């Protein structure tokens, strides 16, 4: 019951949703919307697990006064303060909540991702060596795409009468490989979904009791 029950529910749920897809009727559409709504509602308490997990981790650090426990205090208190502000004074445009979001969260996120530009450039400088023809192709295309996206590059391409070169590379050979990969991913998703439904893939059952 502890294992077979959930496995049966998984199989039945999967089969019902596949059948539903092939029934072009209003009832079928409403059923689909209902199930999606059920999925969202049933996932709400899972959020508690996530917040419990991060709180547990940081509270343990604080309790044991592990190295850098002060940062854990920062994380926990900022969760509480941010949520409190949102619930107390609302989340409308120009509210304190949104100001914090715009000037602290968005600022730091954008800076963090821009920082990755430096590391990508330095990693590329160290690792991009045209050792093989394939590696050279990767390097050349990357440079052409980067160069073609800045004003000076664009003007050079116009002078060479190749203004649409980058668009052409992106639209055809690049898209061809992306499509091939996408087809593989789609088939892989179907195979994995089938394995889950049929109970071949049982990793999700975990080790929580027999």
């Amino acid at each position: 019951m502890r294992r077979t029950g959930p496995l049966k529910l998984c199989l039945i749920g999967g089969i019902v949703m596949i059948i539903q897809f092939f029934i072009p009727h209003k009832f079928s559409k409403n059923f689909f919307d209902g199930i999606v709504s059920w999925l969202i509602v049933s996932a709400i308490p899972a959020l508690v697990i996530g917040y419990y997990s991060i709180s547990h981790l940081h509270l343990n650090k604080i309790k044991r006064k592990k190295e850098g426990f002060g940062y854990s205090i920062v994380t926990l208190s900022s969760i509480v303060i941010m949520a409190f502000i949102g619930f107390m004074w609302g989340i409308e445009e120009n509210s304190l909540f949104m100001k914090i979001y715009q000037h602290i969260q968005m600022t730091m996120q954008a800076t963090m991702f821009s920082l990755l530009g430096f590391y990508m450039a330095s990693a590329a400088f160290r690792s991009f060596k045209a050792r093989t023809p394939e590696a050279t192709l990767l390097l050349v295309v990357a440079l052409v795409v980067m160069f073609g996206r800045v004003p000076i590059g664009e003007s050079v391409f116009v002078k060479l009468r190749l203004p649409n070169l980058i668009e052409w590379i992106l639209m055809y050979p690049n898209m061809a490989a992306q499509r091939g990969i996408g087809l593989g991913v789609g088939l892989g998703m179907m195979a994995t979904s089938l394995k889950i439904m049929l109970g071949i893939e049982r990793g999700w059952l975990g080790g929580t009791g027999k």
Partner: protein
Amino acid sequence: MSHDPWIWIAVFFTFCIFSFLYKDNPFYRFAEHLLIGVALGYQLPIFWKNVVGPKVILPLQNHEYWLIIPLCLGFLWLARLIPKYAWLSRWPMAFSLGTGAGIAIPLSLQASVFRQMQGTMLTKAMLSPSITPVIHIIGNIVMFVGVITTLIYFYFSVKHVGAVGKVARVGIWYIMLAFGATFGYTVMARVSLLIGRFQFLLHDWLGVID
């Protein structure tokens, strides 16, 4: 120079994150932990307003009591916190995975397989110079060859020797080209974020550029 305190706060955190370029330091770690906390705190009121309110509270107020079923199912997630009853959390997981797999199978077949194949197929019109410009005709052929060769490269059920090996080699060229284009795009996206941060510092904060 700006007199808006929020701009100064954003500038402080921008420099905190950029300080990592020198080395890991307490300012960066403070900003990093604050970002995690603020992002998690931000999610709670947003989730409450956009999901819990319209998907649970409002329907219950409208006497749609059937929602209690997925809600109860969802609360079984919390059984994970009690080791003795942790197996109960398999039920909501089975529901999510089963229905999710059932939804994913026909959708990936439609979106990732059929649509991609449809987009790759060559029609008479796509190869006719009177209808399609020559550059696009070449592109369509390049695309067709690219998708087939990329798929053959990922087909590991036969050894990549002889004719298959040669075709797979062409596939590698396409894949390397796509990786190069993706890399170039990613770097440019990061660089544009970096430019955005410098614009913020020089325009919004210092006011030295228009």
